[in-house]
């Protein structure tokens, strides 16, 4: 195929629709087949980007500003590839998971398909109104997935999530309206030189509104309040998809707007503010994770903390020397990739544990180390990445970020990053510690399928190997 880009959007749409046709709980095989093809397509696209540079695709053949363009640069290529790589083991996992736990499935498969279509479309979009539509599709599918869990907890969490995501996309759309009103175009390529030339006050307000909207969706402190119940309350495969990928989508948009179209609007104060919020997220998320009593809530709060790391890159890339900025940007993207792999693995491992012992209580995990050694090992490996310890991808990410911070003489952020890593180690250890205790009387470990254990392990080992093969990822990222 000459252009894999549109097919990355069409394929999930098609298999999700077919899965819906087949009814509740059906379509797992379609998903695995579809994602396998998507993975090949994403790899193909990444290959094209790496060899020929960024690619543009005119939808409808009209071209911007009249039509909509798709645009795939290195960053988009990394995220597309990451999404399919994380999602494929997760759908394999989900098939095994829902085989044991069928009443939670509902319309999991079609919703997952639409979710992936929305993500792929979002990564590829180069038109701010189109981005808004993909954001809404992403938000509603994610809410649907959380709500499908049933019960007052998940439904309440889903509704809160829905309202937040609507508020976020509302702010984003108002920003779009202001930008369109100012320049008369929504294409990022067309807008970039226009904003560079002249930006009236309305565009600053628009950028602020869009940023706040995306922060809400990314769950950056203090907008994180909706995330732990939504991610912690959903079935494990859903939690994994949401925590690993969905929050990254809105972060990707922030990064993309910040680096390109809105770059002239960026101020050091805003960058430092984002950094401070990121710091608060790291500290607050980690401390809350340490205090949780339920395993999945701990992991969800860990996402709050890890999202904070992503935002530390803004003070490092704004008004600093180019070497430090490049290093920090690479570190941020590595953190994104490593966290996606690790968090998917971690939620999957937690799901396996919960399926096996039938409860979610951190203080009652005794015996997991002997009955589910591979799953616990998976959890620990994922924990390595979160704590940024070698040889994981998280370590490389932290190394790059710290290099960026020290290179731009912002030593405060170094302290934050390093202490954040220790806090992550603390909450991962809390789980390991309990799991090494002997089996509590009366606990029954029901057998779980090997697919559950191995698919999670695959994800965790990828997050680990990333530490040794990061040059490939960074090479793709650098392709302009």
């Amino acid at each position: 195929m000459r252009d894999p880009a549109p097919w990355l959007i069409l394929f999930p749409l098609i298999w999700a629709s077919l899965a819906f046709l087949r009814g509740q709980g059906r379509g797992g095989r379609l998903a695995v087949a579809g994602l396998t093809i998507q993975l090949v397509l994403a790899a193909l696209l990444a290959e094209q980007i790496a060899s020929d540079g960024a690619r543009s695709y005119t939808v409808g053949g009209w071209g911007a500003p009249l039509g909509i363009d798709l645009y795939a640069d290195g960053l988009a290529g990394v995220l597309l590839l990451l999404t399919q790589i994380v999602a494929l083991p997760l759908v394999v996992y989900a098939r095994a998971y829902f085989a044991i736990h069928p009443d939670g499935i509902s319309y999991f498969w079609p919703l997952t398909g639409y979710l992936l279509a929305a993500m792929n479309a979002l990564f590829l979009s180069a038109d701010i109104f189109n981005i808004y539509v993909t954001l809404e599709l992403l938000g509603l599918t994610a809410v649907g997935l959380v709500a499908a869990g049933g019960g007052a907890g998940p439904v309440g969490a889903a509704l809160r999530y829905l309202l937040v995501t609507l508020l976020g996309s509302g702010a984003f759309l108002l920003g779009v309206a202001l930008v369109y009103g100012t320049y008369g175009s929504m294409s990022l390529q067309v807008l970039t030189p226009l904003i560079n030339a002249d930006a009236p006050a309305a565009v600053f307000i628009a950028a602020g509104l869009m940023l706040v909207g995306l922060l809400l969706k990314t769950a950056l402190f203090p907008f994180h309040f909706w995330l732990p119940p939504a991610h912690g309350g959903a079935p494990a495969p859903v939690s994994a998809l949401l925590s690993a990928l969905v929050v990254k989508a809105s972060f990707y948009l922030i990064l993309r707007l910040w680096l390109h179209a809105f770059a002239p609007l960026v101020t050091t104060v805003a960058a430092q503010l984002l950094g401070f919020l990121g710091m608060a997220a790291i500290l607050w998320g980690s401390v809350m994770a340490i205090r949780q009593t339920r395993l999945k809530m701990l992991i969800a709060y860990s996402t709050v903390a890890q999202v904070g790391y992503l935002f530390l890159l803004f003070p490092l890339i704004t008004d600093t020397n180019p070497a430090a900025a490049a290093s920090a940007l690479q570190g941020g993207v590595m953190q994104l990739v490593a966290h996606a792999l690790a968090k998917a693995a971690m939620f999957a491992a937690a799901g396996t544990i919960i399926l096996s012992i039938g409860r979610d209580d951190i203080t009652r995990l005794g015996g997991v180390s002997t009955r589910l050694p591979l799953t616990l090992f998976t959890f620990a490996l994922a924990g390595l990445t979160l704590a940024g310890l070698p040889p994981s991808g998280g370590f490389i990410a932290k190394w790059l970020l710290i290099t960026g911070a020290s290179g731009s003489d912002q030593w405060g952020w170094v302290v934050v990053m390093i202490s954040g890593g220790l806090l992550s180690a603390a909450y991962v250890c809390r789980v390991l510690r309990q799991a090494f205790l002997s089996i509590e009387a009366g606990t029954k470990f029901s057998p779980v399928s090997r697919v559950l254990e191995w698919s999670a392990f695959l994800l965790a080992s990828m997050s680990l190997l990333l530490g040794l093969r990061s040059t490939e990822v960074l090479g793709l990222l650098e392709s302009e």
Partner: protein
Amino acid sequence: MTLNESLPLLMLASSLVPGVVIFFLAETRFALRTTLNVAGAILKLLLIGYMLWGVVEGQSYVFRHTVLPGLELVLEADALAMLFVTLSAALWLLTTLYAVGYLERSPHRSRFFGFFSLCVTATIGVALAGNLFTFFFFYELLTLSTYPLIVHRGTEAAIRAGNIYLAYALTGGAVLLTGVVWLYGLLGEVEFAYGGVVAAMGPEYHGQLRIIFLLLIAGLGVKAALVPLHGWLPQAMVAPAPVSALLHAVAVVKAGAFGIVRVVYEVYGVEFAQSLDLLTPLAVVAAVTIIWGSLRALWQDDLKRRLAYSTVSQVAYIILGVALFGPLGTIGGVVHLVHQGIMKITLFFCAGNYAETLGIHKVTEINGAGRRMPWTSVAFSVGAFGMIGLPLTAGYVSKSYLTQGAEMAGMAWAGWVLTASGLLNALYFLPILYRLWFKSQPQAWPNEHILARGRKETALLLLIPPLVTAAATIAAAVFADTNWSPLFWAKIVATKEYLLE
């Protein structure tokens, strides 16, 4: 990839591959697991033998892998690395054999041996690291692979010890990382080289370099158990005896001390470090550690705890040697890296034997054990004599070089510290020996697991390793002047570090 490039990698693989395979072996595959372990260890020793010869011949064994643009994992077998590698690999083989006997019939052996092999892999990585980044990489890996071994028993005490260890080691790692990144920021790349690499920096950087030195030493000092960063080591003695052997002799403490050697000699360069006035404070810290560890050891009734404090004190000898400016001190410190390992592992093997065979955990319970377990007690006595520094033991060799080094460096007080420490060592080891040999046996042993059968005082696999290391303790002294002694290698290292060639 040429053979010389792949050899360092093969060194890692010879323990990594068996380790990974062992993880997935069923608990009952005893024979296969043991075969894998021993085969890996022997293969590693063979590789080392070949490479030792090569290093003497002037071959270079370097493996490079680019992790990031401008950042490489470098594995390089130089003289200092080979010294540590040989020690670790030889002791690994003995410890494996010992552990096979020690853990017989206990649960989760696959997990244990899997992490055990990972741990050795990390140690080999630490030893072969050719730059500071690689060193840090494996240094943290070592922390992580040791944790499951410490908590192996799954008791509350073991898990608490594990968490204390992890808290200390990870915090140390974080401090170390700060220093490493800082130094990379200044230099771009910090590859180990004889004579150091930072000396070229202008005087305006000297302030920063001092702070970085402090960060690096503090980070490494946690594992090397320098006072006041030693708190984890006595706690960790709840781990099984083979793990204690690993912690105290083969891997963890050694990695910290080894790192300090690398930083002082091959990052800063000993002359530059001296010119920055960094060595005297380091010597003072080492001296304080030596005395403090010995003093604390005096009051411990728990045998392994006493040995743990003894380690705190003995490892600081290495640091002291490093801090004594001049080749003799260097030789003493570097050779003690090996000697302390051999002697301390003997003692821990023996302590494990007493515990496994008779249920003895305390010094006060050991009365008369010499007659019940003569071979173990002979080995223990040799180890203890070595620690005190009596002639014809490895400890004597290192101590004499250290004392001369102190004089040469003009730090006579360090000589007094060594003498005092020797006395203190005698004070806490001789009473044990007295109880062993001269007190009468009690009515019943605390908990006799293994009954004596004829002349076999305990399981053979438990007995052979300490006897071998005890013999090595004596051999290292008797054959100190031959070409294959640790001392010979330490001299090669010192020659290169002081660029005397």
